[in-house]
């Protein structure tokens, strides 16, 4: 769940709720973006269980968040047995992403064009922004699949966007370089990360708020570097 962009408090909440439903006396959970620590206290036992779960990979798949959220509610209201709950979880883990890659790319293309217009670009910037945004997103998806170096996909995608935008200007297709780049870069911007970071900070989850904020900063920096490279060198 945490891997897919849920808020920290939601994860803590779900775990506590699940633990209570399965007859634990008390549960203490500490959630950060890189690890979950929980200990469970069972009635009539002097020892308690403690477990640390390390979280390595993070991305945004809100569909999964909804599914797990529903499952935990179902456990509470219909008292599912542990086995069925586990089976359901496994099933959720295996569900493919809600949208295939081409739909996502199409969405990225539309988003880029619309944002170029929204940031007061002219209609001549609409097409170049769509092309640059689409190309950037394809590069992003492909590189993310094959190279696991963090922030590298964002950097290269931003570089491609800058390149396409520059080409559009020199060939006379586009009007304003800035508007095209802003529009095309938007699909890469870490929007969920930023909001979750500030929300966690305000809710008192200081550790996860700051680390999410740092991750968002680094992503933004990678995008900025990719674009800057094009602007400065060409």
């Amino acid at each position: 769940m945490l891997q897919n962009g849920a808020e920290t408090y939601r994860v803590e909440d779900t775990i506590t709720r699940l633990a209570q439903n399965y007859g634990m006396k008390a549960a203490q959970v500490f959630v950060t973006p890189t690890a979950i620590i929980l200990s469970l206290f069972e009635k009539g036992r002097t020892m308690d269980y403690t477990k640390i779960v390390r979280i390595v990979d993070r991305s945004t798949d809100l569909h999964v968040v909804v599914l797990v959220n529903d499952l935990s509610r179902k456990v509470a209201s219909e008292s599912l047995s542990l086995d069925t709950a586990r089976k359901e979880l496994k099933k959720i883990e295996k569900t493919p992403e809600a949208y295939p890659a081409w739909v996502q790319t199409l969405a990225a293309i539309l988003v880029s064009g619309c944002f170029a217009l929204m940031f007061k670009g002219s209609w001549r910037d609409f097409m170049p922004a769509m092309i640059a945004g689409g190309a950037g997103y394809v590069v992003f998806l492909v590189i993310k699949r094959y190279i696991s170096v963090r922030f590298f996909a964002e950097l290269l995608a931003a570089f491609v966007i800058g390149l396409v935008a520059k080409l559009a200007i020199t060939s006379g297709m586009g009007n304003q370089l800035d508007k095209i780049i802003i529009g095309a870069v938007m699909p890469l911007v870490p929007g969920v990360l930023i909001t979750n970071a500030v929300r966690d900070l305000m809710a008192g989850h200081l550790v996860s708020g700051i680390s999410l904020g740092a991750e968002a900063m680094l992503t933004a920096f990678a995008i900025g570097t990719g674009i800057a490279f094009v602007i400065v060198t060409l």
Partner: protein
Amino acid sequence: MHIFEAIWTSFIASAGFGILFNVPRKAVIPGGICGMIGWLIFEGMSGNNQFDLVLATALASFVVAAISHLYARIYRMPVIIFSVSGIIPLVPGGGAYDTMRQLVENDYNEAIQLGSQTFLISGAIAFGLVLAGTILPIILRSTRTVK
């Protein structure tokens, strides 16, 4: 900006972002509507420089969060599903880009000015979200007890 243009661009942009974040199918259109309303408020307030950008952003994100809460109740899904695509048009992508660009061109004064404005705007988004998140449940609870 023409109002009709503002409506459809912001709707498509927000709904498209919903798809990028793998939001469930049912939630794509509501997310788009959230984003559209937020953007209209923002544009209406800041368009002719009537109000400060930060104020406009805070109000718009408050409304977006309020609508997201409503949708979350209707569809029985977490609020974040709707609010994430709703606030996307408000995220100061342009400001962040301009800041970066000034930095690259060694114009640090301009960069700091733009950067602090960008930071304030993202703070305003979070402020609006959190305010709606704390106030709305209180209002809903109090109306229920009055009944």
